[in-house]
Structures are given as C-alpha cells and as structure tokens.
C-alpha cells in the first residue's frame, strides 16, 4: 500500500497509466490494458456522431478501470475548461488530464493557457493532471495552483523518442511537491524504466503500446519496465567510475 502511486489521496494499483487510442481493434485494446495492469486509462471527449454510434467505451472498459478524460485537441483555456466540465458530467469523474496545445505540429503545450485553465479547474473542484512542458518552473507553478500531479513530456506526443532531456525530468522530480508522471514520448520499455529511474512516480503512455507490432506483449513489457525502474530507483544505482573494478575476488587466483 505504502508503495503505491497516490494521486489526490487515492492509491492507484499501478504506476503505469495508459491511453485507449490507436489500437488495431477493440479486443487488442482491452487485452493490452489488462496486460499493462493499469488502473487509469485515458479517453478523449468528442462530439457524438448523430449517424448512430457504437458501443460505449465506458461499458466496454468495465468498472475496475478508472477513466481519465483528457482535453486533447483544445488550444484555449476556455475550450479545455468546457471539455473538462463536459467530461465530468459524462463520466461522473472530477479527474481531468489537462492538455492545452499551443502548436499543432509539435503538440507542445501552451503554458499560458494551460496555467489559466488549471487555475480555473482547480477552483471548480477538479483533480487536475496536466500534460506539461519538461520545465521545472512550469511544473512548480502547476503544483502551486493545486494540480494533483504534473505530467511533463519526455518527447513530443507519439514521437517515440524517449526522454530527450533527462536532466530536466530529474530536476522536476527532485523538486516537485506533487507526483511527477512522465507523459508522452516513450518509445519502448527502457524509456519507461529510465523515467522511473530518474525519479518519476509514474508513466503515462499510449502509442508505444498501441502501435507496436504486438501491443499485448508490449503492454506487459511496459508494466515490467515501470516496476523495474521503480525498484532500481529505490535501490539506488552505484556510482559511475572511470575505470573497471573487478567484481570477482582477487585472492586465490590459480597460477599466482
């Protein structure tokens, strides 16, 4: 219990949070989510198609999954706040992954609008988990506003580049008063493990699982990687040395 990621007072089953987008089909999505062990699964909020619509994601995902709606695609605080409020009514949750995008190509957050939206949502009683820049100052401001976590990007969304600025992530983790969840950029399991070794409390990813050749296998790998990275962080890596240091005993060598 004490070893769990606690978000807004709630201990989560897993330090890995996953998205629900981009899987080859619904069954692979469900099997991947199960294999990942994630309790928190992100969803988008979109206009309903009035030409008839398919099975609801809520019913498909089941009650042991905690849905985390996002404000993906919003580029102003106003749109993000309305989307969050719609999500709260639709899903009966006050949790929101706040995304306010400032640039369509890089999908980098618009810090000014994000801070504005975060302030408004926190005041309105939302549990705000913002997708943000890998910038310690922005992260501190978000935490000071009352966000439940900060979720700095490792690399651009969907890029699979891993963690482009490990030093920044490490600094954010060292100073943050709220849990740091690495969001975006993870390409493979070692990236997720690395995020945990840098001190992250969790990892949120989607594309790295959904677009891999075998999403279910990758989901299990990510789960193991997050556990491994977390364990390694707790245990503490050995200091790096410039030269070799024999690990076998030096005495009793034959021929000496």
């Amino acid at each position, binding site marked *: 219990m004490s070893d769990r990621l606690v978000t807004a007072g709630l201990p989560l089953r897993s330090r890995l949070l996953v998205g629900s*987008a*981009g899987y080859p089909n619904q069954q692979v999505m469900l099997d991947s989510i199960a294999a990942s062990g994630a309790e928190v699964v992100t969803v988008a*909020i979109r206009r309903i198609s009035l030409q008839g619509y398919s099975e*609801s*994601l809520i019913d498909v995902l089941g009650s042991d999954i905690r849905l985390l709606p996002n404000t993906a695609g919003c580029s102003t605080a106003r749109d993000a706040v309305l989307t969050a409020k719609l999500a709260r009514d639709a899903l009966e949750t006050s949790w929101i992954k706040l995304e306010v995008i400032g640039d369509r190509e890089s999908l980098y957050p618009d810090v000014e609008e994000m801070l504005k939206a975060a302030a408004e949502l926190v005041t309105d009683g939302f549990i705000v988990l913002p997708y943000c820049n890998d910038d310690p100052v922005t992260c501190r401001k978000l935490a000071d506003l009352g966000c439940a976590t900060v979720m700095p990007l490792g690399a651009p969304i969907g890029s699979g580049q891993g963690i482009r600025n490990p030093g920044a992530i490490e600094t954010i983790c060292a100073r943050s008063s709220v849990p740091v969840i690495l969001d975006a950029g993870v390409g493979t399991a070692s990236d997720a493990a690395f995020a945990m070794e840098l001190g992250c409390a969790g990892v949120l990813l989607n594309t790295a699982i959904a677009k891999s050749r075998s999403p279910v296998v990758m989901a299990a790998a990510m789960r193991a990687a997050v556990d491994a990275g977390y364990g390694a962080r707790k245990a503490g890596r050995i200091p790096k040395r410039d030269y070799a240091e024999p690990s076998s005993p030096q005495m009793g060598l034959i021929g000496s």
Partner: protein
Amino acid sequence: MSLTVRLNGKSETIEAATVTELLMATGVDPARRGVAVAVNGEVVPRKSWPEFRLNPGADIEIVRPLQGG
C-alpha cells in the same frame, strides 16, 4: 415545435423543445451513460435535461468519450 439551432457545429432544424427531446429526436438515448450536453458554452447537467428549454439559435454540443491518449 421546430427550432433552428447550431448542433455540434452545424446548423440544424430540430423538432424539440428540451434537451431530452433533442436527444431523442437525434437518436441518442438520454438514459445512456457517457453522454454530456452543453448549451451556449455551459454544461447542462443530466438531471436538468427534461426541463431545460432550447431557444432558437442555441449553440448545442453533444459529446461522449472516445478512444484517446
């Protein structure tokens, strides 16, 4: 009663006076989980749907969760 409104970004003429009637007229089951409605930039809570009256020109958004990251 017929009204011209903006529904999910498109101008539509609808036969509905309230949000519940609008949902039924557009084939969305109002009892279905996961649906939310905003009118003129404000969320209309589910419990207010039956009596919330729509005016001509109302800007209406009907949303639901979808796969996302």
